[in-house]
Every structure is written in structure tokens, then in C-alpha cells.
């Protein structure tokens, strides 16, 4: 640990209120502590199954079962990644849901944004391609805070300026928690360029058919249906930013989708790990991944190197829940194997 880190922890201890500290402590003793404890115990058990074959080569041990070790480590890795996902939820709570508005020029993305926000924050003009850069707006939708990111439109034949805007859009899409893909009800939907389409996932994308007031009752074209089905998306929500038709349904759909982003496994007590936890968990995940790669390589890496990676993972988990003493690995080893001459 470096001094700067140590000072940061000191700040935490002194600068924050007793209640903040108590709250953090409660979380460690609560759901997070319990979940971490399970991960740590599973890792200790696995490490003991590795170490017994290193430290007791002369013993009459059962045949080494690497498959079991791999499965156990995969489980711990999954748990670690799940726990890490709660940081994203923490960010979601704190910073808002990153929501990207996507669509061809002039489908009325900015109008829709304005209708949702209720102010004239985005610049709206009938000239296609007005929004070349992206702008941000925050709004509450039900219990959620949405950070709306308006993007430059999709242009099949972009100029230099538009090209730059599109690269930014692709980047926004890759990091989006929620994508509102807006199409013009009166026009055929342009085919999404592959660099956009790769970020379209059904669990984070809502398709919106704007300007429904202009074509009331008209169905989607077959071409549009093929593209939507191809991306595995639900049928679009019909709305009109001008008349307000369908905006209520859109809000409900947004709330529903964002609810789904919250990790499902901490039902009662909310876990939202902090940045320090996330850093340790990320290092744990990296180390476990390295161990798994070593185990499954052909030929596998020497076992003492794999053990080193598992141990590094355990140490990283221990940074959150408390250092894991070597003795606990030996405890597990002697409890599970008949050792000794």
C-alpha cells in the first residue's frame, strides 16, 4: 500500500461522519460481507486442493481433479464479476442511466428529447444533421435518473463532419446503459451501419417510431420488420413528440428496462460497491482469469504458477473483507485430506 492510498483511507475515516463509517461497516457485515465470505471460502478450498499436491507429493492422495478446480474457480470468478456489476448499479444510482438517442437525421430525436425533458435544451431545426456533436440532458423517469445523450444522426453518405460525429455515436453506444433508437414513421428506416448494430442488444434497446401523428394506422414495412427481427428487438413503440401520443408508454417501458439493469441477486439489502472495492474485485477477477487460462492451456502452466494467481485473487478479495491468513488454507487442507505419515 502506498502512502497516498493510506492517506485516502485516513481521510475516509476522519473526514466522513461516524454514520457513514458505520454504514460502510454494516455493509461489510451484511450482504456484501456474506457474499464475499462465500467467495473467499470457495477460493481457500480450491487453493487447498492445489496446494495439497504441491506440499504432499509423497502422500497416498486421491487422483488430482483439475476439472473440479477449474469449475470452482469459474464459480468464484462469476461471483466476483457479479459483485463488480453492482458498481455499475452504484454509478447508475449516482450518475444516472446513460441513455443514447439513435436514429437517422431528422427523425426527430431532438424533438423527442425535448418532449421528454420539457425544455428547449436541444437545438431543433428542420435542416437534417443539426446535431453533429452530442449533448447531455438529465431527467427523472419514475424512480430513475436518465442521462440522455443526443447523438448525430445516422447518415448513409456522411460528410467529413458527419463522419466524426458518427464515430462518437458508436462510442456512446458501446457505453450506453439504454439505447432509444428513433425512426421516422413516415419513412423507411435506414439500415444501421455495422459499427452501430454491434452495440444494439435487446436488453438495453427500445425502438421508438416517432411522428406517428403523420401516418396514423400505417404498419411497418416488410424491410423494417426484417431488420428489427434480425436484431432480435421488440416491435417499436409508436409516439409523437409533437402531440405527446405514446410518451406515457415510452416512460413506462424505460422504467421497466432500467429496473432490469439492477443486479437481481441482492434483493433485500442493496449492495453498491465503491471504487476501492471495485478496484480490488477487478484485480481478483484478473488473477482468477489468469489462473483459469493457465489451467486450461495445453500443456497447462506449472501448478505453482497457477497457485500464485489464485493466491493473488484471494489476496485481492481479502483487501475488502480482511486479509486471509495462510493458516486458513492449511486448515482447509488438513480438514479435507488425510495427510501425515
Amino acid at each position, binding site marked *: *500500500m*502506498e*502512502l497516498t*492510498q*493510506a*492517506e485516502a*483511507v*485516513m481521510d475516509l*475515516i*476522519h473526514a466522513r461522519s461516524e454514520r457513514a463509517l458505520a454504514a460502510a461497516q454494516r455493509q461489510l457485515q451484511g450482504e456484501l460481507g456474506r457474499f464475499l465470505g462465500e467467495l473467499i471460502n470457495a477460493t481457500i478450498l480450491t487453493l487447498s486442493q492445489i*496446494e495439497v499436491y*504441491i*506440499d*504432499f*507429493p*509423497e*502422500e*497416498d492422495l486421491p487422483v488430482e481433479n483439475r476439472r473440479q478446480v477449474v469449475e470452482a474457480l469459474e464459480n468464484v470468478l462469476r461471483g466476483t464479476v457479479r459483485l463488480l456489476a453492482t458498481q455499475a448499479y452504484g454509478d447508475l444510482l449516482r450518475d444516472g442511466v446513460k441513455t443514447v438517442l439513435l436514429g437517422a437525421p431528422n427523425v426527430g430525436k431532438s424533438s423527442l428529447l425535448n418532449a421528454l425533458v420539457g425544455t428547449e435544451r436541444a437545438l431543433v431545426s428542420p435542416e437534417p444533421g443539426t446535431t453533429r456533436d452530442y449533448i447531455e440532458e438529465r431527467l427523472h423517469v419514475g424512480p430513475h435518473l436518465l442521462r440522455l445523450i443526443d447523438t448525430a444522426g445516422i447518415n448513409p453518405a456522411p460528410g467529413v463532419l458527419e463522419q466524426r460525429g458518427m464515430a462518437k455515436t458508436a462510442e456512446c453506444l458501446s457505453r450506453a446503459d439504454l439505447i432509444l433508437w428513433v425512426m421516422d414513421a413516415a419513412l423507411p428506416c435506414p439500415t444501421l451501419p455495422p459499427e452501430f448494430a454491434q452495440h444494439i442488444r435487446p436488453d438495453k434497446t427500445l425502438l421508438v417510431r416517432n411522428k406517428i401523428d403523420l401516418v396514423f394506422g400505417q404498419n411497418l414495412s416488410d424491410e423494417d420488420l426484417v431488420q428489427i427481427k434480425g436484431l432480435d428487438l421488440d416491435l417499436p413503440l409508436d409516439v409523437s413528440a409533437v402531440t405527446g401520443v405514446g410518451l406515457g408508454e415510452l416512460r413506462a417501458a424505460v422504467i421497466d428496462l432500467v429496473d432490469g439493469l439492477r443486479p437481481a441477486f441482492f434483493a433485500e439489502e442493496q449492495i453498491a460497491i465503491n471504487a476501492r472495492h471495485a478496484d480490488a474485485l477487478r484485480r481478483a477477477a484478473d488473477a482468477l482469469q489468469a489462473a483459469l487460462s493457465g489451467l486450461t492451456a495445453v*500443456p*497447462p*502452466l*506449472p*501448478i*505453482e*504458477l497457477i*497457485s*500464485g494467481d489464485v*493466491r493473488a485473487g484471494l489476496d485481492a478479495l481479502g*483487501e475488502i473483507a*480482511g*486479509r486471509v*491468513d*495462510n*493458516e486458513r*488454507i*492449511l486448515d482447509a*487442507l*488438513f480438514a479435507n485430506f*488425510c*495427510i*501425515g*505419515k
Partner: protein
Amino acid sequence: MPDSPALPYDVIVCGAGHAGCEAALASARTGARTLLLTGNLDTVAQMSCNPAIGGQAKGQMVREIDALGGEMAINTDLTGIQFRLLNESKGPAVQSPRAQCDKKAYQFRLKHTLELQPNLWLFQATVTGLIFSANSAGAGRSVVGVRTNLDLDFFGCSVVVTTGTFLRGLMHIGQNKNEGGRLGDFSAKTLSASFLEAGIELQRLKTGTPPRLSGRSLDFSKMEPQYGDAAPTLFAFHDTRDPEPLFHVEHPSVAGVTLREERLGWSPGQAQVPCWITYTTERTAQLVRDNLHLSAMYSGEIEGTGPRYCPSIEDKFVRFADKPRHMLFLEPEGRATNEFYINGLSTSLPFSIQVEMVRSIPGLERAELLRPAYAVEYDFAPPTQLFPSLESRKVDNLFFAGQINGTSGYEEAASQGLIAGVNAARKGRGEAPLIIARHEGYIGVLIDDLVTKGTREPYRMFTSRAEHRLLFNHGSAEMRLVHHARTCGLLSATRLARIDAKAARIFAEVQRLEQTRPASSLGLGQGTWGDHIRHTLARGSAGLAPELAAKVELPLPSEFADLAKEERAEVLYRVAYAGYLAREERHVARLSEVEKIKIPADFDYDQVRGLRAESLIKLKASRPVSLGQAGRISGVNPADLSVLMVYLETKRRRAKDARTTHPTPEKS
């Protein structure tokens, strides 16, 4: 012999087991006038349990002992009757040499070594108590000498205590009890009172040993032989060792004639003898189950805690009831005896049951027992009462080593003995103690674990106890510890120079392989020699084991081929594991920062705001010498360490600022 208070010894060592012998030799070799007292000069360096040295982690420790000028390695090489390298199929870091020894030859050679050692006097007497005086500061006490059963007192500046299992030793065979630290030997009954008087806490531990069998009664055709390696891995660094007069038990040195190792008839690793493997049967299990109530351990006769890694046969059948049979090794006790040690059959059942049990085992149906199995309980002083130098925190100039510190094993004992002996001698000269860091070797891990965490059972070393075991391959012991050997004067100038030269050759060759490329005419393609070695070894079925590098299909450059075998192995290890070793070194560098932050002996933990109550209690109880040590105390968590670190750092900076702004202290 100097024996009055006016003319004391520099160091008195009590006990001549594996700890005591190394302590006495190390102390005398660094120039301290040393007295070694033992209750029986005929049992010097006795292997009270199995006649073997080395094994996992222990083998590496023996090589470290050799690197620090100790005797265990060379003594094993010259009296070993079977040598095997364990874990040969795994990487070099976890490979360990192990040897069966001729038990008597081992003792005789070590006794003779003690007799020939300048500055060292031997005397047979049982130490019955310590002589204290108030220490110079007037607080607490220091030891100034020892009393013996012969009513002779001996005085010394420092005293090293290595009591083994003899401190209030009590042996159990079923319901039968005998006082003594070893079958046929005495018990040190009064010395414990001296420790208690000085405020040193004592607790009980237990250990056990199996029966010994007569070889003529065994049917080896029903057992599986286990042979030594054709090319034995020895313990001592013969490649850098001085051509000192090394003598052999069968060829004692004769005045005026210098005997050399290579001239001896029984040269290291030659004419090896096998061990034999057999198994317990269902009948053995039944006998144990039926008679459990008669076992000293299961009938509540024994209060001490035994080692989990060395369970009695009762424990094995009770705790692992579903395991149908247990493996047993018959180990020969020497070339000149037909006595066999039966490894794996430690028990405290009554003798009559032992006989039936032994005879229920294939090959042992008609076995004659020469000595019974027994359990022994003894006092130990929880080692958290020691400084990392192995000096007592309670009594100045009093050092502890071996089983009295709660350890088990000859190698663990010898390691501590060596360190305690060196430090007892250095204390008398006012020199800083020798402390091996955790990242430098198993000896460092051993002592740090003991003084920081203590132990609940007889402590044995395992490679998994070492965070940096990748750095602890047995072949690198000399290079890891040479700076300590130099500082403490543990090796001759000749040997130091040879180690330096060896290290230089290894470093240069590693660098050359990493920086040069094979000639394009070899058709190996891009990359340095290092890249090719890593690639070739990683493809091989044996992983990266450099020992198999001889089989590597690379036309390695002649500079490499010209190195000695051990040097080639070290070079290949460093090249093949380069990335992992570098990562380990970075880890060590990060950790050693906190080791450098010292905590003053009189540090007031109550001043530190923000420590949790549990940590405060633990820190005040164990008084760590550095922030690094504090971090290894169980219950002290990273946040507590941060608090402590910032406090110490702030204090240090303030003190530094005060010094720079006020070069001359103001007078008041």
C-alpha cells in the same frame, strides 16, 4: 574451561539436538567462545523420529542452512543412504531434496565436527535452572548463566535454550506413563520453573513416534521398494564449498592428515538403500476402532496439542473413516543396523495392541518390535514472546530455538538454532541481529510466523506458507543469503568469492540469453535466446521445468553449455520463469517498503486515533517491530495498517522537520 563469573563464556548453548548443534557451531564459527551443554553426549544430533532430512520446504531450508555456513546439509550428504528429489515433475521452485540418513553415522560425524570446532567446548551436564541478574537498565532481568544437575554453574553473556521435548517431557504408551523427552532418556523437570519465575509463559504440545522393527522379521517381498535417484541431488553447495578438511565417520581425521571429501570411501549419494512401501488393512482399522478407549490420546490422558500433518493412526482411522487403507513407509535406520522405522504408524495405543496392529500389515506378519511407539508431551514457550532475533522479550540475552518455540522437525530446529547462535554471539559483541526477511527464504518465513503469529500445534514448514516461494528454489539459496553470510562472517572469504563468481556467471548468462539472438543460419526465426527457451519449454509436456532442459531441442550457445550443471539449471529457471519472477520481485519491493517502517519498542498505540479496538489489543500484545510485521498479525486489517502508517509517517516527518529547522536543540 572458563567457568567463573569473572570470566564467562560468550555464549552458552543448552541442548545438543539439531537446534543446539547449529547454534553452538554458528556461535563458535563467528568467533564467540561457546560452551555446549548436553544431558548426554552420546545422543548429540539424534534423529528422535524418522531417520530422514529434507522433503517439501524442509529440503530448501537445509540448503539455506548450508548457505549460512551451517552443518546440517554437509552432514546429510556425507551420511545419507538414499537421496530423492521430490516434485521432480513440477517447477523448480517446489522441488525439494530429501535424504534417508544413517542415524548413527549422522550423530557421530556431527559430534566429531563439534569436537574439532575451535572456540567450542562440550560438556555433559543437565541444565536445571537459569541464573538471572537485574539488567543494566534496572528494569526486567537478564540471564548471566545456568545451573546444572552436577551443582556446577556456568556463566555466559548470552544463553541459547534448545530443550526439544525434554522440558517436563512425559511419554505415553496406552495408559503407561514415563517421564522423559525420548524413550530411554531423562526429563528436564526443574528448568521450567526458571522460565515461569522470569514471567515466560509455558504451554504443552504433544508429538508421537511409531514403533521400530527388526529387519530380519520383515517380508520385503510383500512390499514395494522405493529407490533413491540415480543422480542424487545433494544438500550442500559442493560447487562453492571450500576444500576444507571434510572428514567421514568411517575415516576420522588424523592429526596432520587432511582428509578431503572426494577421497572418502562412502562418497555422497553412492550405494543407496531402498525404503519399502506397504499399507494398513481392514484388520488394522478394526484393531484401532476396538481399542480406541485405550489410546492415551483418546482417553484424555494427553492435554497437549499434536500436529495435524503427522496424525496418529488413531486419528487417521477416526477422522477419515471412509479411507480403507493408509500408506506406510519402512525406512532403514542405517547401514550398520537392521532396525526399521515404520513411517505412518505413530500411535499411543498400548504395546500389546501395537504388536497386533503391526502384524496385521502385509510383510509385517511376523514383525518383531524393537521399540514401542509412544506419544510425548512437553513444555514449550509460545514464540510470540520472542523478538525476530529469537531473543526473549522478557529476559535479556536469553535466546530460544527449536521445539521450545513450538516447532517440529530437524530442519526447522536447525534453522532456528543457527540464527539464535549467530545472534547470541552478535548480542555479546553489541552487533545488530541477523534477521532473514520473509522474502529471502524459508528461514525468514519460519521465524516471522513464529514470533508474529505463534502456533497452536507443532509448527512445520510448508511451501504454501511462503508468499514468495517462486523465489525460493533450492538452488538459489546461496545467492539469496550471501549478503547475510558476509555481514555475519559465516562463510570463509574463499567461499564468498566463489559464490560471487558463480552469481556473476549466472547473471551474465541470463542477460546474454535475453539480449542475443540465435544466428539466422540456425533457422530458429525471430526472437532472443530467452524467447526461444520460453517457447520451447512452454510447449513441452513437462511445463517449464528447466531440469528437463537437457532435452530441450535447442542448440544452446556454447557459453551456456560451458557452465556447471547447477548453474545451467539456475540460468534456465531464471529465463523460463522470467516474467513470473519479475512480478514476484515487484511484489517484494512493494511489500518491503512497509518492512522498512519501524515501530519503536516503546510505541504508544493508544495515541493513534482510528484504530479498531480489536487491533489495538492485538498490537499492544504482540508489539511488532515493523509495519510489515504488524500487517501479518491476524485481526489487524488493512485499514488499521493505513491508520498506523500515516501516524508513523507523520511523526517521522515532524521529527525530520524539527531536526532541519532547529539544527541545535533549544535549551530550556
